[in-house]
Every structure is written in C-alpha cells, then in structure tokens.
C-alpha cells in the first residue's frame, strides 16, 4: 500500500539550512547552493526570550500552527483543468487569506537620537533615548508570514473529468493516508454517446468508426449493466480476502463494509442507468480503486457488448467516501473563511467514518489474537 503522492509540495528536504535567495537556489542547502552564499550569522538578538529555542515558548504570539488551517475538505474540480493547478490555486488563496490576518507587532529597541534637551545654556543638541520599532520586523523587510502551506491531494481526477476532489491542509494530510487505506467507494455520473468510437474513448479523441444504434433498447442496456455488476461483485468478494462462511463476514456485509481493504484492480460495486435517450445515456457508477480512463473504457465496452459503439462525454465524481457534492466548494468559494468552515463542518464525520472503517481492521486483528490464546489454553487443558 503506497501513500498517495502529492501529500507535500515535493520530496522532503532537511528542515535546517534551506534558503531560497534566488530561484535556482530554492530549497537547497547552503553548502551546495548555486548562489555560493554562506550563512554565517544569525539576526541580532534583542530580547531575552530570543535565547529560548523557538519551539519551546514565545510570548503573546498566536503561533503559526494555531493560525494556520488544518483538516480535510472537498472542492469541486472544474473540467479542463489539471489537478495540480487546482491544488496550487487553493494553496495561493489560503496563503493570501492567512497573510491578511493581523500579524504580531514588531519588537522595540532604544536608540539614542539627536534631540533638544533643556540644559544649562538653553536648548542643547544631545543624544536622547527614543524607543523605536525594530525595522527587521517590518512587514516590508521580513516579507509575508506564510510562504508555503502543505496542501495534499486525495484521490486524483484527470484533466477532462470534474467533480468532488478531496484536499488536506497541514495536519489533515495524515488523514488523507487514512482515507486512502480505508478504501471508500466513489460515486460517478458518466454520460455516454452511442454511435461513435474514438481512440481514447472520449468524444474529443480521433474518430475510429461510426455505427448505428437504433437497435439498442433500455432493457438490453439494463441486462448488460446487470452482467457487469454481477461479475464485479464476484471479484469484490474474492479480493475482500475474508472467508464468507464466518460470522464476521456476515456482520460486515450487513453494515456494507465488505470490500477489499488491500490492493485490488478497479472494481464496480454498483452500476445503474439514470437516463436513456438514444444516442445519449447517463450511468451512475459506484466503484473502488478506479481511474477515470477505466470508466471511459467501461462505456466503450458497453457499446461493444450492445453490438454498437459508444464514447464517453462526461465523467463527474459526485461522492468520494463521505464527501458529497453539496459539501464540495466551488471556485468562487475558495477562500480562507469558507475552507475553514468546510473543515469544521466535516471534522466529526471524518473522525467517525475513519474509525468505523479502519477501527474494524484493528479489532479483527485483536480478535484473532484472542482466539489463538483460547486455542492454546484449550490444548493445554487437554
């Protein structure tokens, strides 16, 4: 089981001594920086609390961790845009929102500036102690507080498809791995068109052949869909790796949690026809471990089974696990308040659903352990 890629913006680099003074040095350590710069000194220490290591304590400051957002939320990815661009756009908007929050006020220091003081011979020009803000803390000198946020992507969508796209921010990226391991099913609505066949199974590809489709009726389509569902259901039970005659398998099946929890090929758990108006038709597919190209291939194969051809015009994800379409944020709502609200709203659901799915895995391991002990005791008492 591999963790989803794109959990962080790139491969992990050592935390210390990174700098980005020029674009070519971005993220490199000082010793092998193209700019040849070496960091010799640290900025001036003005206050006694600067001597305390940063992670331990800082007075009066809402820490970066407290200010930043953490958690899982879903966005609606529009079609025609690659998923990294969506993720980058969300990160940029979050950064803009975070940097617009109130920043901590700058440190103060005492400087002796020329000033007029009442002396013996009238007004004299002497150094006068004045309290000035430290310019090194000025926002124009130190730059924005946040320059990078860890935004991870969940199950990806390819360029042509659209729909619910789960993203994790900050500490929420760990939950992405849990969501991946929980192997939730996903819901898609797939629109197809009878009568054409293209090389990449979609309507924008190179046309290979055209066929008639007058003989296709909705009963024939339903029959094909039932066959697909049946064969996929058998494969589902095989890959679930559980002996079907046990009580545990029955309980899981009753709860609807009977599905492969390890690596498996793409499986369709449910498929039905929503609309049938030849040449157009719309299917609802519930599947596991799939890719959008696989769904387009399914549409193509349905066309072949019906002794005609079909291409896929739209693949749209309506549900990813427990993130449904109404929870997904549209492009106009990709700002910090809406995202924070979405994270807050789905926090409880995320926790309970993940516990339900992954918790039973740990419980079965525990139960097996108990059974082994009982068997040993039984043998010993004989």
């Amino acid at each position, binding site marked *: 089981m591999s963790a989803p890629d794109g959990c962080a913006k790139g491969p992990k680099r050592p935390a210390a001594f990174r700098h980005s003074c020029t674009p070519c040095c971005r993220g490199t350590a000082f010793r092998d920086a193209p700019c040849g710069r070496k960091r010799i000194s640290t*900025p*001036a220490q003005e206050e006694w609390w600067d001597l305390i290591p940063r992670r331990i304590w800082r007075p009066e400051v809402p820490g970066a961790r407290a200010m930043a957002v953490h958690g899982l939320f879903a966005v*609606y990815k529009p079609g025609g845009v690659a998923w990294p661009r969506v993720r980058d756009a969300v990160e940029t908007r979050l950064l803009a929102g975070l940097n617009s929050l109130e920043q901590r006020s700058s440190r103060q220091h005492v400087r002796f500036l020329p000033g007029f003081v009442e002396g013996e011979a009238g007004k004299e020009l002497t150094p006068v102690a004045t309290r000035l803000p430290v*310019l*090194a803390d000025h926002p124009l000198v130190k730059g924005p507080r946040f320059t990078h946020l860890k935004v991870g992507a969940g199950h990806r969508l390819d360029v042509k498809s659209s729909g619910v796209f789960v993203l994790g921010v900050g500490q929420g990226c760990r939950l992405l791995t849990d969501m991946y391991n929980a192997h939730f099913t996903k819901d898609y609505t797939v629109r197809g068109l009878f009568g054409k066949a293209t090389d990449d199974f979609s309507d924008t590809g190179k046309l290979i052949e055209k066929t008639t489709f007058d003989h296709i009726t909705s009963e024939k389509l339903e029959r094909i869909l039932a066959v697909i569902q049946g064969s996929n259901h058998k494969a589902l039970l095989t890959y679930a790796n559980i002996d079907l005659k046990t009580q545990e398998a029955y309980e899981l099946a009753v709860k609807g949690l009977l599905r492969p929890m390890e690596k498996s090929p793409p499986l369709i758990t449910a498929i039905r026809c929503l609309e049938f108006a030849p040449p157009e038709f719309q299917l609802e597919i519930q599947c596991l471990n799939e890719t959008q190209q696989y769904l387009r291939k399914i549409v193509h194969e349905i066309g072949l089974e019906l002794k005609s051809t079909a291409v896929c015009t739209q693949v*749209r994800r309506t549900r990813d696990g427990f993130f449904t379409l109404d929870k997904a944020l549209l492009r106009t709502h990709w700002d910090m308040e809406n995202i924070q609200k979405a994270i807050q709203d789905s926090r409880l659901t995320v926790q309970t659903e993940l516990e339900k799915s992954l918790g039973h895995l740990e419980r079965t391991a525990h139960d097996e352990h108990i059974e082994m002990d009982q068997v040993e005791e039984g043998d010993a008492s004989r």
Partner: protein
Amino acid sequence: MWWELEPKLPSPSLPYAQRSLVVQIQPGTQDWDNVLPLSALEEISKEEAVQTVAKPLFPFESFTLRDYVDHSETLTELVHLGVDLSKVEKLRNAGQLLLRLDFENDIKKILLFLKDVGVEDNQLGPFLTKNPYIFTEDMEALETRVAYLKSKKFDKELIARMVSRAPFLLMFSVERLDNRLGFFQKELGLSVQKTRNLVSRLPRLLTGSLEPVKENLAVCRIELGFRPNEIQHIAFKIPKILTANKKKLTETFDYVHNVMGIPHHILTNFPQVFNSSLLKVKERHMFLTFLGRAQYDPKQPSYISLDKLVSVPNEVFCTEIAKASVQDFMKFLKTL
C-alpha cells in the same frame, strides 16, 4: 546613526569571544604607528563602562537585508518610502547595490528626478521594488530619454503614468525606444497619435521582447483568420492580446468561434472575450444555453453582447443577463 558606529571601549561584562580590539582614535592625531591597541584586561572607569553599548556586531556576510536594515540609513529611508526589501533582496545583485549606495549622494538625485518626471510619492516604493537598478543609471542618460519622449509629443502626465507602470522604461536607450515605437506603428499600421495612445495604455510593450508580439500577430493572421484591419482594431482596443499566451488565445478563439458560433466581425467588435479565462466563458455560455438565452446575434431579439458576458461579476450576470438566481448558477456549475 553615526555615533553608534563610533569605536567603543570593550565592556568587561561581554564574553571574551565578543570583545573586539578597538583602536581609540584621538581627533587630530594622524600618526597611526604610535597608536596602541587596548588590552582586554585594562581597567576602565565606571562612567566609561556605563557608556559602552553591548551590542552584537552586524554580520559581514548575509543572505538577507534584514540584518542590515537597522544599521544602514539608506535602507531605513527606503523602507520608509515603501520599498519592499524582502522582494528586492531576491533580485540579482540588488541587495549588494543598495547597501553600497549612499542616500545623500546617489539615491536622493534619482528620487528627485523621478518626482520631477511626475511619479507620485506612493508609487515610488513599488517602482523601486521592481527596478532598484535605476540607481546605476546616469542622470544625463535618463534626462535625454525623457526629453526624447517629450519630443514625440507624450504629455507629462502620460510619461509619469508610463514610467510608474513600466519601471524599466527609462533603462532603455533612445535608439531602442525609437525602434519599438517604429515597430508598433509599422506592424499595426496605426497613426502616430494612435500608437502613442496604445503605448501609453500598455507601456510594457516598449520594455518587453518583440518576438512574442510578432508571433501573436502571425497567430491572429494565420490561425485565427482575422484580416489586417480587424487585427489593428482588436490590438488597439485590447493591447494585452499582443502579449497574451498563444495557446490560451487559440483555445478561447476555438471555443468562441466553433462552439458558441460567433463570427469574426462580432469578435472584432467585442475582443474583451480574449482577455478573460476560457473557463469563465464556458461556464456562462453553458448556463445560458441551459436556460435557452444564448443569443449573440445583434439582429435577433434578447441579444447578449460579448463584453457584458465576460466583464460583469457573477451576481450582475445572474440577475441581469441570465435572469436567474445565483444559487441556480452554483447548482448548475456543480453539474458540469
């Protein structure tokens, strides 16, 4: 502040490593051979000890201007002007340049010159953030260039606006500026006054490279199929099209012409479509098609002009053009 950088006596309270051997300079003595360095163990009076300032020295080498801003008058004044040092230090050699310069001798002249040209006070900060290299330019060269622009009958306010919006404009020599103005006049076939208007609205045409502009004009002529007078009209109305991304331009045109079915002459009248993102155009067109209001022919009733389609914000689009609520539009977007 000069008296803080004066040589100080080493304080006995400092750790040994931080004490520097400071040479005490008597005013008037030029005899460097006879001056002896102070010993670290020498006893000093209480008043002298109280006057010493135990500050760490500022670093010899650093990758950021944060370490120097409190010690350098130049940098302090620049920050008060509004220059964003965090961006300037990322430019090549700009940090080194600013540290080397002296505010009174070098920087003040250029700032006064810029104020003379007409750049406003609140624009000086962003200008210098983008182009700190203006301090390396010769005053005479800068004045010649401004005189050249005035000779080409650019108004003072126009020059001020152009210089604020394209900070690198005055770094170009007179021949280069002449070349560029001549190029735009010839290629687009515009009159002198129209070229002046075009360049003053998008001054970065004069500072950018000419190759992308030539390629964009070729794309408009060959791929998109516009006639030369149509290209002239579009470029004059939306100068950004000359520096736009070719791929985006062709994709937008492909959708607008082939899917929305808008002919060339209507596109020439409303080239604002090329300025907006394809996604926005697609979403709005599909919503209008869904409602049955996608009518772009001016001769038909309830016609929708293309510039209103793209330039208005979402709420105005929904209420006035699509005559539906914003929630309906959002629901529709989730079905695309």
